[in-house]
Structure formats: structure tokens, C-alpha cells
């Protein structure tokens, strides 16, 4: 329990540090929001007035504090060009990006896990080698090219089997559920196949680490076949590593789907960030960056907590190591603690 509290505290501290870093970096960047809002024909007085309205004339610590306290009240600021609230825009865009990342992760897991297991347990050396090569090839495909191939294969109107839409997202969003889902199918496949290949390689190497261990020999000696032992004991022991990769892949997808969002003309989070950066709207950008950073840190937190739940050895380590061990030791063998493993 103390571990959970400590880890959550670390999350909060990291987030505050990151917010400061984002704030400082964006103040160093060139470009003046007030001038952009005012336009090229505005007078210096007008620009000064806009700057005052936006609070950009105040000292940096005050600006920083105003920003943070706004966030604590749920106010991420206002996008200057559109006049919409940044929180609202992020929520809008997340309706595309979040399902896209989730579907991509699902595709990646559905491909990577079973093939990763097969690449270790298959009795045919050809199958094992073939899967290994496939993983390297698929993992090296750039998202842009992979997406284009998929469009040419499956895209409606242009593809060999034109069954799926390849451009845009329905204006009615998820109210047009079927259309929304199908418009995310190709993008999710493009990111999912590539991440799936990565997944397969991680699963394979994690399983290879335990394959020849006595953990599997013990399970087999108790009555499992080799494949059964790899699937149950091996995968379970590899689970913490797989969870790490899954968590980071998911976080990476949320922020890293810019190429795919552009290719498939999806109004997602990454495109929003790029647009606002182009507009020099640093008030919107700083809030958007903070949300993405918070998400990244949050996934790290989740991964760590899941790790902790998956490995009983970590609990002993967190609660002061020897305490846990001494608690159950008894005199049977002189209560001797071997330092081994």
C-alpha cells in the first residue's frame, strides 16, 4: 500500500516538474501570440492591449501560477484563433485518437502475442525462422508506407478490395457508430500491424529468457507438455515485460499517430497539436502538451502498479525486503537465508 501511495506522489511531482519545463520551453520559443491574434496590420498599441487581455504582460511566475490554478479548476485555456475552449477541443479530438489507439493496441496484441508464442513453441524450425523474419520486416515498415499499402489494398474507391473508407471521420462522430468504426479500421490496422510486429519480438525474447529455465522444467516435471509450460508458466513470468511494452506502446500511439492521422485525414489529437503549434498559439499548446505528458506519466504509473500486482517478489522488496522474509521463516533449517536469487 505504501508503494502505491509513494508511486502516486511521484506521479504528481513529475507532473509538476513537467508543467514547469513545458512552460519554460514555450516561453523561450520565438513567436508572439499577441501579434498573431492581432494580425499583420495591427498597431503596437493594439498588440499591447491584446497582450494585456491574454495576461502575457504579467511576470512569468504569475503567468505560470494562473495557468496551473486554471487547470486545477478544469480550465485549460482558450484557443485564440477559434475561440473554443482547449479542454473541449482536446475532448473532441480524443474521440478519434483514443479509440484509434485502443483499436491499434488490440490489433497489435491480437497479432503479437499468439505469433510470439508460436515463434518459440513451434516444432518446425522453418515456422520459427519465418515468423522471426516476418517480425523484423513488418516492424521496419514506416507507418506512412504501410498505411498507403493498406489503402491500395483495402481502401474504398482506390483499393483492390475496396471495402473500407480511407479518408476522414464522420461529422456526426460516434453517433454514426458503424461509419466511425469503419473509418478507423484502416488507420488502426496500419499502426497495429507495425506495433504487433514489435510486440511479437518482445514476447519472443521474453519467452526465450525463461524457455530453458528450470521454472519450465519444474512445470513439465509436474505433468505439463513443453508448449503448455511455455503458454502458462512462461507467459506468466514474461507478463510484466509484456505489460510494460503494451503500456508504452499505447502511450506512444496516442501521441505518435500524427503520420497516420494525416494520411487518413482524421481530426485527431496530433493534428490539433500541430495546427496550434503552426498558429503559435502557445497558450493552447502548453495545455495540450501537459495533457499528453500527463497521459504518458499516467501510463507509466499504471504499468508500475500492474507490475507490482503481478510479481510478489516486488512486494517484499518494497516493504523493506528482509521483513517479509523473516516473517515466515522458522527454525526448520536454522532459519537460514540464502542470498541466492
Amino acid at each position, binding site marked *: 500500500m505504501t508503494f502505491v501511495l509513494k508511486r502516486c506522489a511521484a506521479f504528481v511531482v513529475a507532473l509538476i516538474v513537467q508543467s514547469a519545463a513545458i512552460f519554460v520551453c514555450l516561453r523561450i520559443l520565438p513567436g508572439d501570440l499577441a501579434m498573431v491574434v492581432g494580425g499583420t496590420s495591427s498597431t503596437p498599441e493594439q498588440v499591447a492591449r491584446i497582450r494585456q487581455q491574454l495576461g502575457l504582460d504579467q511576470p512569468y511566475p504569475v503567468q505560470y501560477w494562473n495557468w496551473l490554478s486554471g487547470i486545477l479548476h478544469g480550465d485549460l485555456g482558450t484557443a485564440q484563433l477559434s475561440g473554443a475552449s482547449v479542454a473541449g477541443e482536446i475532448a473532441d479530438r480524443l474521440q478519434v485518437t483514443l479509440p484509434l489507439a485502443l483499436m491499434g493496441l488490440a490489433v497489435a496484441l491480437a497479432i503479437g502475442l499468439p505469433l510470439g508464442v508460436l515463434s518459440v513453441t513451434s516444432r518446425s524450425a522453418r515456422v520459427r525462422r519465418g515468423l522471426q523474419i516476418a517480425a523484423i520486416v513488418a516492424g521496419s515498415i514506416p507507418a506512412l508506407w504501410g498505411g498507403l499499402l493498406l489503402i491500395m489494398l483495402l481502401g474504398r474507391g482506390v483499393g483492390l478490395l475496396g471495402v473500407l473508407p480511407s479518408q476522414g471521420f464522420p461529422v456526426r462522430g460516434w453517433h454514426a457508430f458503424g461509419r466511425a468504426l469503419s473509418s478507423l479500421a484502416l488507420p488502426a490496422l496500419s499502426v497495429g500491424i507495425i506495433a504487433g510486429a514489435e510486440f511479437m519480438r518482445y514476447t519472443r525474447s521474453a519467452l526465450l529468457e525463461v524457455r530453458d529455465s528450470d521454472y519450465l522444467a519444474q512445470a513439465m516435471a509436474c505433468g505439463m507438455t513443453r508448449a*503448455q509450460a511455455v503458454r502458462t508458466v512462461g507467459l506468466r513470468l514474461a507478463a510484466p515485460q509484456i505489460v510494460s511494452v503494451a503500456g508504452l506502446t499505447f502511450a506512444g500511439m496516442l501521441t505518435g499517430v500524427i503520420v497516420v492521422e494525416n494520411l487518413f485525414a482524421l481530426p485527431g489529437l496530433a493534428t490539433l497539436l500541430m495546427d496550434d503549434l503552426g498558429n503559435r498559439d502557445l497558450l493552447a499548446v502548453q495545455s495540450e502538451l501537459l495533457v499528453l505528458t500527463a497521459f504518458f506519466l499516467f501510463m507509466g504509473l499504471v504499468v508500475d502498479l500492474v507490475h507490482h500486482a503481478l510479481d510478489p517478489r516486488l512486494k517484499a522488496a518494497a516493504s523493506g525486503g528482509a521483513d517479509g522474509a523473516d516473517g515466515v521463516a522458522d527454525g526448520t*533449517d536454522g532459519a537460514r537465508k540464502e542470498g*541466492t536469487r
Partner: protein
Amino acid sequence: MSLIVHDLTVDVAARGRRAPARPIVRGVDLRVDDGERVGLVGPSGSGKSMVSRAILGILPPHLTAGGSVLLGDTQMIGADENIAASMRGSYTGAVFQNPAAALNPVRTVGQSIALPLRLHYELDRDEIRERVLRQMRAVELPERLESAYPHELSGGQRQRVAIAAALVTSPRLIIADEPTTALDAVVQRRIVDLLVSLVDDLGSSLLFITHDFAVLKRATTRCYVMEAGRIVEEGATEALLHDARHAVTQSLVEAATALSLRGGEEA
């Protein structure tokens, strides 16, 4: 007859022309009668562990076994994987060298001991728990360790858990592969005595693999000596201790005698 091994070979599988098959074990013959305790002794790297894994059908994938291994009426060499697996944990029980590296680190003591029961018998929870607790008493582990994890135990306790898991289904043949090597001398003796008394209580047979004649003397009545993948000598353990013919046997006996300060007789 619990175990008959005839002309057993273990090879590193050939990988194309550049890496031809490499022999590890050559023409090993050995037998373990019902209720007999037999030793397989040899220096490190002599192939004795590979013999035990070939008998169990759990060689690493890059090794292949030939010849014949009969567990009761079942031929293990070339057997279907499911048939081989159905013998392990029911007809045979196995204890490995380092329980810290063999017991599943994310399963409790109770779960590890229950595994062979769950794999081979359709018992309900209470029956499994009852048999697990009975087995824990037999290996002198306190009941409260049932929900402990391996990393919370001492080395001796861990090996008791491994022995409990190996014996919980009352197998006909127990194969112990250097079960005391990772333990210190005092704990070694207790574990060997415990294993021997439990095996005798069950009326099962024991194949005890070690490089240590001192341990062998406590655990077995007859033994085979291996060197470089072959059996080089066999006979009653007591006789080999006094009258070893082969140089390897002599050096192993000498090592055991030298290690125990009060001389080989007391070991």
C-alpha cells in the same frame, strides 16, 4: 521394474552441414528396481543431468535422445508429448538442483505443491488443499507457509517444497537431480534423510543424481558412475567406496572423504 534405460544417447541436434550432431551421452544402460534407491554419480559435465532429463522427456529443444527409456510399460523415447507429459508428475516425481530457480516465483507454496494434483486428477478444492497440507506436514513445513512465496523461504524450506511437489501424487519413481548441491552441509543431510525416509514410506524407487559420494552413501544402495557421457562403473555403493576400480570413481570417493573432516566412514 520402475525404470529400464537401454543404450540411451543424447545428442546436440544437427543444424545443417556446418554443425553436425554432437554426442553428449553415449550408450547408457541402467535399471532401477521397485523400491530400490540407485545413485548416478559423476563429475560435473559428465552428462548425468542430461540422462535424468532424457528419462523424463524434458530435454531442451536443441537436444535429441535415442535408445530406450521404459517407465513401467511406457516407452518415453519418441513418445507422443501428451503421453510423456501424462507420466511426469504421476508415475515420476522430480526434484531439481536449485529450488530457487525451479519453483514458480509467482505461485505460492500451496499452489506449487498442488500443481501435479491439478494436472493429473480431478479433485475439488478441499481435497487438493487437504492433500497439500498433508504433504506439507510430511516434509515438516509449517502449515502457515502454504500461502508464502518461494522468495520468502530459506533454501532448505524451498527444497522441502520441491520434494513435497514431487511426492504429492505418490509416484512410483522419484528422480532427484543434485537436490542438495545448493544447500549447506547441515541442511543437506536433513534433506537427504527426509527424502530417503519419504521414498521408503511410499515404497517408491529413487534415482539420485549427484557428484558427492558422501551424500550418495546416505541415500542409495547401488550406483552407477558416469564419465564423459558413458557409464564407466557400477556396483553397491558401499563396495565402490572401499574398492573403486575406475580412476573417476576413486577421485570422487577421495574428494568426498577429504571434504568430511572426520573421514569417509562418518560422512
